[in-house]
């Protein structure tokens, strides 16, 4: 099954040696990605430079990206993605820590992990409705709180589910579990011996975390926050069905590509290319942060 089984038999496992041959090991992955992902992206790139009606080459679609409301949509998407990635990352980490290392009964761990698998992809209309039933004007929690004289929707609170804040609350429903799922293997990999060794050398738990655990976990932590960012950045159906007035890039793209209304695929493709660029920047930032953190943790 291993595609690279016979490529460099017995080669010493050292990076950088036999450079050309080593790349052959990635051929299956790249071929698959080319066929089902990169070529589609290429079509999209080509489409973004073409007029949707005539097919003539144009930069018009990109010019339209700088309309105020499109810029606003990008900013809103980035903000929601950042907030839910960081908040989801922190609480997801705590939850993962609680079940993996926090001394909770072992069966809870399986329950939480499996639940996270389901919840991490609970999205779209069912998720939007679940929160409407919970926190909406007629929602279960809203009505429950009224019994105690707490009116969520009183003018003074300014609360509404159909806002950016509402979307963020809802997005966390799939952000937490994703963090739990990715962090759990990493936390699981923290070997007990390391902690014992650290303690034997008289390290405090703080020192242990600072010197041992965090340096090991940081790349995964940062990488997963990027993943959460992308996860929120690409989401559409949930936000659209909950609060269509909060403008997100994905909603604008969907409107351009598949909606009844605009049908200007060229602009939709350009918008998606904008997302690709932002994602690339996010990944660059992640590498940078990772480098900085390595230095910082070593110091």
């Amino acid at each position, binding site marked *: 099954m291993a595609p690279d089984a016979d490529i460099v038999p017995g080669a010493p496992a050292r990076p950088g040696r036999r450079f050309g041959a080593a790349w052959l090991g990635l051929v299956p992955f790249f071929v698959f990605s080319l066929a089902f992902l990169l070529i589609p992206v290429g079509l999209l790139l080509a489409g973004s430079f073409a007029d949707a009606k005539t097919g003539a080459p144009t930069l018009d679609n990109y010019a339209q990206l700088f*309309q*105020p*409301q499109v810029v*606003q949509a990008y900013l*809103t998407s980035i903000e929601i993605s950042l907030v839910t990635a960081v908040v989801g990352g922190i609480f997801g980490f705590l939850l993962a820590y609680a079940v993996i290392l926090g001394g909770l009964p072992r069966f809870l761990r399986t329950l939480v992990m499996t639940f996270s698998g389901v919840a991490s992809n609970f999205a779209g*209309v069912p998720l939007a*409705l679940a929160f*409407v*039933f919970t926190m*909406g*004007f*007629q*929602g279960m929690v809203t009505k429950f709180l009224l019994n105690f004289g707490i009116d969520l*929707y009183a003018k003074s609170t300014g609360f509404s*589910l*159909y806002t950016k804040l509402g979307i963020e609350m809802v997005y966390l429903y799939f952000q937490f579990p994703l963090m739990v799922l990715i962090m759990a293997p990493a936390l699981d990999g923290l070997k007990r011996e390391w902690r014992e060794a650290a303690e034997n050398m008289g390290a405090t738990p703080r020192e242990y975390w600072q010197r041992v655990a965090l340096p090991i976990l940081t790349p995964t932590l940062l990488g997963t926050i990027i993943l959460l960012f992308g996860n929120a950045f690409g989401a559409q159906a949930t936000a*659209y*069905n*909950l*609060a*269509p*007035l*909060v*403008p997100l890039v994905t*909603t*604008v793209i*969907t*409107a351009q*590509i*598949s*909606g*009844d*209304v*605009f*049908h*200007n*695929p060229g602009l939709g493709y350009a918008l998606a290319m904008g997302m690709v660029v932002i994602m690339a920047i996010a990944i660059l930032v992640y590498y940078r942060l990772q480098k900085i953190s390595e230095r910082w943790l070593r110091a």
Partner: protein
Amino acid sequence: MTTTRSLPRLLTLGAALVLVASACSSPGGSGAPAGSGGTGGGPTWTPDATLLAAAKAEGELNVIALPHDWCNYGDQLKNFKATTGLKVNENDPNAGSGTEIDAIKNNPNGGPAAPDTVDVGYSFGDANKDLYQPYKVATFDSIPPEQKAADGSWVGDYYGVLSFEINKDIIKGDNPKDWKDLLDPKYAHSVALAGDPLNSNQAIQSVQAAALGNGGTLDNAQAGLDFFKKLNDAGNFVPTVAKQGTLVNGETPIVITWSYLALADRDKLKGTNNIEVVIPATGKFGGIYVQAISKTAPHPNAAKLWEEYLYSDQGQLVWTNAYCYTTRYSDLVAKNVISGDLKAKLPDVTGTVFPTNDQLTAAKTLITGQWASVTGLGPLKTPPPAP
């Protein structure tokens, strides 16, 4: 896929059969009492033998964007399958008109995902003429000329008006009778659209319809935008996408939607929720859908057969039973295919106006451009340049 036996659907089907039976049991036209128990009967469509044979040779029909509870498409498909024995591939039942057009464009070489026929909004008729193949059904002449392309490349199928679908368990007192009534403080946090104007034609047309009820014209939808601003400022507008779930839960107890969808919901929810449907007194805005056969249809004969069925008396009656006014309505009434009872059941749509393509386009440009800024709900404060 062929056997969907949910209880409400069976009930609807039963009701439809009863109505069909009552419609036909008295050719004289005065109409037998509903529920007289007659079985069978009703206008039955007999497929043309040559066309049927050609379609059978193709074996399948690909359709797209036909939700089963939308205008009774569930029964249409069931009847068609029963009569012809063809297999039907139902693609993306919730697709919008734009997606239907793309499905044609993206599948030029056939396959199960290439639609044979589409059911799209009026403005997608003429605009996409070169994607369709002209075909005139046997009953083509009985359709009013303004509701079809002269060469048969697209043909109007049914319409409804924008109505208020009201959850009476929440809205206890008087119903709003007209658009202006929605501003009443007693409807606080109540009124919602069944879509977002930036994504859904139905929502745009709701704004355009509101314009008619507030001094605007088909040529000027600004009054509709102003109306929704007032509705929002009054705290009556719920800025979400209304669905049956939000309607019955009470989150959006007044939903602006097509009359046939609202009335079908009312029937379906009978016994569990008390739903009433109000056709606004002014601003009756007609939305018409059109049928077309794809130029690259993998099963052109099956497609023609499907169109023949839909425009037969039987197909037309199935739509009418779901409160859809078909384009052959006057003809059906003249031929006494539609009984008095069924007629009485249909909403009163006298005075309905139908926008032209130009009016729809102008309103669309205005509303999508101004929606966010006029309602002040989104953070978009700057109106975009006109596309």
